[in-house]
C-alpha cells in the first residue's frame, strides 16, 4: 500500500478521537485480534522466507510492519514468540545490510540444545508466521564511515552481526580494508560460508580466513591475528562468538595495550557456574529501581523488600491477589507454596510467595 496512505491511517488510528472511542482498551486491541500485523504502534514482522544453511541453524527473512525504524549494522532486535501459551523473547542480531528501513531483514538462529526459543524457531519457523519484534538496539556497531582498517572475528553463530557489517560495507563505494577470522567446527557448520567467499573475492583489500576447529584447525591463538594484521593497535577490532573467544581477544588486546579499539558482543550473559543449592540461604537481593541491596535471609522477597525499607504494593500476602507481582530481571526464586524453582531469566513473579535462591534482581 502507498506509504503516505498508511502514515495518514496511523495518524487517524493514534488520534485522541480514536483513543476516546476505543477507551479503555486503545485501538490496537481491536486490530490485533484480527491481524497481529495491523498494530497501530507495535513492531511486528512476518516471515517471508526460511532457509536452513547448516544442520543446526535456521535463517529467516522477516518483513517488519511500518513501525520498524531500521538499524545500524551490528545491532540486534528482540524476537518474541509464543510457546505453549507463554510469550518468550530473545535477542537476535540482524544479519542483513543496514539500514533496512523498509525492506526485509534477516536473522540466523542457531538451535541450542535444551534452548526454548531457538529450538522453537528452528523447528517451526515458516513463511507467514508473525513474530513480535523490538526496535533495533545495541552498541556493537560500525562507525558511520569507517576509515581505519577493520579486524572482524566471529565464532559460530556470532557471524550474524558481522555478516550485517560486511553486507553493509559491501554496498558502499569505498571501504576500509577488512580482515576477518571466522571460527567454525567444520566446513559444513559455516553459516554464510559461500556468501562470505564470494564477498571477499569481490574486494581486493579484504581478506578472510576460515578456521575449522574440529577439522584440522585449532581454537583461537594470537598467531591467527598476527598472520592477518601487522599491528593489532592499528585496527578497529570487532569480535562476536563464544565467551572463550571473546575473553581471549580481550586478554590479547589488553596485553598489546589497545583495549580501547576492541568491541565485542556476547550472546550469553557471563553466568556463574556454581550449582545452586535451593536449601541453603545465600546471595544478594538487588532492588534496582530504588538502588538498594540486601543480603538474602531466606524469607519471602516481599518481607525482605519491606525490611529493606521499600513499600512494594501488596495485599493478601499469600499468593492469591497478584498485587505484589513484580518483574524479576535475573536470578532464581523458589515458590514458597510448591517449592518449585523458577527459570533464571526475566519474568514477572509474585514476591509474597517467592524466596530467593542465590542472587536475585528485582525491578523494585
Amino acid at each position, binding site marked *: 500500500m502507498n506509504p503516505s496512505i498508511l502514515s495518514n491511517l496511523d495518524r487517524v488510528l493514534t488520534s485522541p478521537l480514536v483513543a476516546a472511542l476505543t477507551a*479503555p482498551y486503545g485501538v490496537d486491541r481491536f486490530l490485533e485480534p484480527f491481524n497481529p500485523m495491523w498494530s497501530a504502534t507495535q513492531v511486528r514482522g512476518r516471515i517471508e522466507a526460511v532457509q536452513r544453511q547448516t544442520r543446526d541453524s535456521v535463517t529467516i527473512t522477516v518483513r517488519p510492519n511500518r513501525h520498524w525504524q531500521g538499524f545500524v549494522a551490528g545491532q540486534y532486535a528482540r524476537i518474541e514468540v509464543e510457546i505453549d501459551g*507463554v*510469550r518468550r523473547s530473545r535477542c537476535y542480531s540482524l544479519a542483513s545490510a543496514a539500514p533496512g528501513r523498509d525492506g526485509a531483514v534477516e536473522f540466523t538462529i542457531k538451535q541450542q540444545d535444551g534452548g526454548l526459543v531457538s529450538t522453537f524457531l528452528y523447528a517451526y519457523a515458516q513463511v507467514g508466521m508473525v513474530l513480535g519484534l523490538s526496535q533495533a538496539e545495541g552498541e556493537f556497531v560500525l562507525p558511520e564511515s569507517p576509515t581505519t582498517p577493520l579486524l572482524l572475528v566471529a565464532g559460530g553463530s556470532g557471524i550474524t552481526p558481522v555478516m550485517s557489517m560486511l553486507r553493509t560495507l559491501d554496498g558502499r563505494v569505498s571501504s576500509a580494508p577488512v580482515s576477518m577470522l571466522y571460527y567454525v567446527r567444520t566446513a559444513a557448520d559455516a553459516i554464510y560460508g559461500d556468501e562470505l567467499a564470494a564477498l571477499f573475492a569481490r574486494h581486493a583489500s579484504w581478506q578472510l580466513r576460515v578456521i575449522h576447529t574440529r577439522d584440522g584447525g585449532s581454537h583461537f591463538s594470537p598467531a591467527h591475528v598476527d598472520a592477518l594484521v601487522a599491528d593489532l593497535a592499528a585496527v578497529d577490532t570487532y569480535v562476536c562468538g563464544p565467551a572463550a573467544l571473546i575473553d581471549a581477544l580481550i586478554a590479547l588486546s589488553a596485553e598489546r595495550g589497545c583495549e580501547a579499539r576492541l568491541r565485542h558482543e556476547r550472546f550469553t550473559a557471563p553466568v556463574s557456574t556454581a550449582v545452586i543449592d535451593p536449601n541453603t540461604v545465600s546471595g544478594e537481593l538487588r532492588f534496582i529501581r530504588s538502588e538498594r541491596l540486601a543480603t538474602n535471609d531466606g524469607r519471602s522477597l516481599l518481607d525482605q523488600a519491606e525490611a529493606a525499607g521499600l513499600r512494594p504494593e501488596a495485599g493478601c500476602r*499469600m499468593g492469591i491477589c497478584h498485587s505484589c*507481582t513484580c518483574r524479576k530481571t535475573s536470578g532464581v526464586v523458589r515458590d514458597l507454596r510448591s517449592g518449585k524453582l523458577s527459570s533464571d531469566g526475566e519474568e514477572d513473579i509474585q514476591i509474597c510467595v517467592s524466596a530467593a535462591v542465590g542472587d536475585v534482581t528485582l525491578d523494585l
Partner: protein
Amino acid sequence: MARSRSLTKTPNPSIRSAPQQPSKPLTANTLSLTPAQIEAFGKEMDAIRERVLGDLGQRDADYIRDIVKLQRGLEIAGRAMLQFGWLPPAFVGGVAALGASKILDNMEIGHNVMHGQYDWMQDPQLNSRKYDWDTACPADQWRHSHNVMHHTYTNVLGVDRDVGYGLLRMDENQPWHPIFLANPVFAFLLASLFQYGVALHDAEFDRILSGERPLSEAMPLLKGIWKKTRGQWLKDYALFPLLAGPGAPITFVGNAMANLVRNYWTFTIIFCGHFPADVQTFDKSTLANETRGQWYLRQLLGSANIEGGKWFHIFSGNLSHQIEHHLFPDLPAHRYAEMSVEVRKVCEKFGLPYNTGSLRKQFGSVVAKIFKLALPPRSAMLPVTA
C-alpha cells in the same frame, strides 16, 4: 453462630473465644472436622491447584484469545448496528451485541484477567496490572477492593465489604435499622446502577456519607473514578451518538440500555455467588492465625455455585463456579468446570457441603433474603450486638 463455630475445633484460641451470635443451625458435617482433617482438606485443594497449574498452556491461551476476539467482534457489531438504531432490528441487535460485549469484557475477560489468571502468559494485553475494562470502576481500585479485600477476607463480616456492598442488609448478623425496610428498593437501585456501585466500592462511599470516613481520604480514589467514568460517558453518551448524526438520541438510548443489561446481569450473577441461603459468613476472629486449610474451608463455605450450560458459564465469567473461583482465584476460570468435579469429590469425602443450584433457585433465595432481612429479626427482643 454456626459459621465460626464450625471452625472452633481448631487449636486457635481466638476463634474458640469468639463472641458468637446465633443465626443458623450448625451443620453437623462441618463440625465434625478435626484440625488435622481441615489441613488434609487444604492439601487436597493444593493438589488440585498444582495439577492445573502444571497443565496450563496453549489451550488456555487460545481460549482466552478466542473470547477476546468474540468480545471485540460483538463490540464492533453492536456499535455499528446502533449507528442505525432507527431501524428496529438494528436497535435490538445493537443493544444485544453491545450488552453481550460489555458482559464478556467485564466478566470472562476483565474480572478474570485482573485476577492474574493469565499473567503466566507474559502477554501485556492479558496482564492483571495492565488490563482495563469497559466499566466505570478504575481497574486499580477494583483490584484492591476485590482481589485483596473480598478474596482474602471472603464473607468476614466487617472486613469483606462485598457483604451487602455497605448498602444492603444481606446477613442476619448485620444489625437491623429501620432504613433497611427499603432493602428491596436499595437492591433494585444497586442492580440498576451496579457499575457505579462497584466503582464507588473501594472509596467506601457509604462510610463517607455516614461520616465515618473523611472525604479527603477518599479524594484521590474519587478523582480516579471520575476520570474513568468521564471517559466511559464520553464514548457511550457523546461520541458514538454524535457519530450517528440525527440518530444520536437513539444511539444514546441504545448505549444506555446495553449498560443497563450488563448491570442487571452482573448483579444477578455476583449476588448469587455469596448470598444464597446456607452460605456462611464469619466473625472477624476467624482471621487470627487462620491456616491455609481453614482459609480454603472458609472459601468453600462462603460461596455458592450456579448450574448451567457452556455459554451460561462463559457469560457469567465462570463466576457460576464461584466455589472454585474462591478456592483458586488466580487459575484460568474456564478450568473451573473440570476442577469442580474433583472439588465435589473431595467435599463428599470430608462430608462438607457444596452449595449449588439452578439460577432460579439461587437467585430466588437471594431475593427472598433481601426481603426477609428488610424486616427486624424475629428475636428483635434480644439486644443486638454489632
